[in-house]
């Protein structure tokens, strides 16, 4: 990815997330409190730091963006109101909005259904992982 393109992506992510990574004071509390920490390759504090540096390509290509639980723990416990979850979602949106980039597709569904699965699991999977 060209530097220019990376930069444009970074700007886009900052815009739609409404996050200012410069507010981060590097305390690591977001990654300390993240319940999905073990499932991620890049962790909340890394999203903040990497987006700030413009290293968005690695983030776009990583499954970490599908592991965030949107539980807002990092948002509420951040002392500086950086709101890393918004950044992760913005990266995920940037990725999903590309053509054919839906992470979750209707044909995947049948195999995953079980009799007790609540509807909202399906609804939210589509909202989180598809356009």
């Amino acid at each position, binding site marked *: 990815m060209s530097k220019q393109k990376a930069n444009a992506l970074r700007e886009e992510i900052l*815009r*739609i*997330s*409404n996050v200012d990574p410069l507010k981060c004071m590097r305390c690591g509390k977001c990654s300390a409190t993240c*319940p*999905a920490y073990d*499932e991620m390759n890049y962790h909340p504090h890394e999203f903040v730091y990497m987006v700030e540096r413009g290293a968005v390509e690695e983030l776009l290509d990583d499954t970490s963006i*599908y*592991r965030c*639980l*949107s*539980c*807002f*723990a990092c*948002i*509420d416990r951040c002392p500086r109101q950086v709101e890393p*979850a*918004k950044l992760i*979602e*913005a990266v995920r*949106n940037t990725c999903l909005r590309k053509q054919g980039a839906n992470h*979750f597709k209707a044909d*995947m*569904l049948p195999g*995953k259904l*079980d009799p*007790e*699965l*609540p*509807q*909202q*699991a*399906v*609804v*939210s*999977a589509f*909202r*989180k*992982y598809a356009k």
Partner: protein
Amino acid sequence: MMTFSYYPGCTLKNKAKDLDEYARLSARALGVELEELNEWQCCGGVYPLSKDEIATKLSSVRALMKARDNSGTLVTLCSACHNVIKQVNRDMLTDDYIATRVNNYLGADGQYHGETKVIHFLEMLRDTVGFDEIKKRVVKPLNGKKIGAYYGCLLLRPAKTMQFDNAENPRIIEDLIEALGGEAVIYAERNECCGAYVTLEDKDFAAKRAVSIKNNAESMGAELIVTACPLCQYNLKVNAAGGVEVKYFTELLAEALGVKEGFDE
């Protein structure tokens, strides 16, 4: 009889019928009528965090508009619906960027600027009915049963918007449990996410989180966990099968109020 507009949400019409029905029965027993909004649409199950997600907020706004024109207050029950609708309502009230664009979409349907008050069923029990009043109406007290409340993430966070309770040390379900004659068990993971959102993406991970929560509750002495969310309920009960029992808090309430039998599965 007080009447509130009520938004059940998709799951409460299907897999979580019991959560909904126990709530309505209990409410009626407590002198509150939940008036379901007509033609509500699914909230989408998860609040879109990105600033430019506009269309995904419309269904919530439509529900909010209807509630505004009815009673002015909207009661929700499912944690996910509550979270989505309350956050969208905050956006409509405080975020001009989002409000303008949403209202552009709404066009002829009218305009909305966050006028509706969104409260959770639990808040209604606490603030409208009152836990003291509930205590008086209990016919089958829980006899000191040790119960752990499971809040999860959606009821409490983001705290500034939800303003539900102390997000790190909530009391509302505990107070309800005690009003019903049970003994509330406080455990630290009651406000940690159970991971159910990724159940289709990574079932094992979701189950791992759920087990951790159940273990924590059990280790602090809980004999039963109550939830407010069908997704949490599924994750704790199905994905993390075995161990301590999991129920909706409304079932507990209906039981204690002696109206549980009104529900015919």
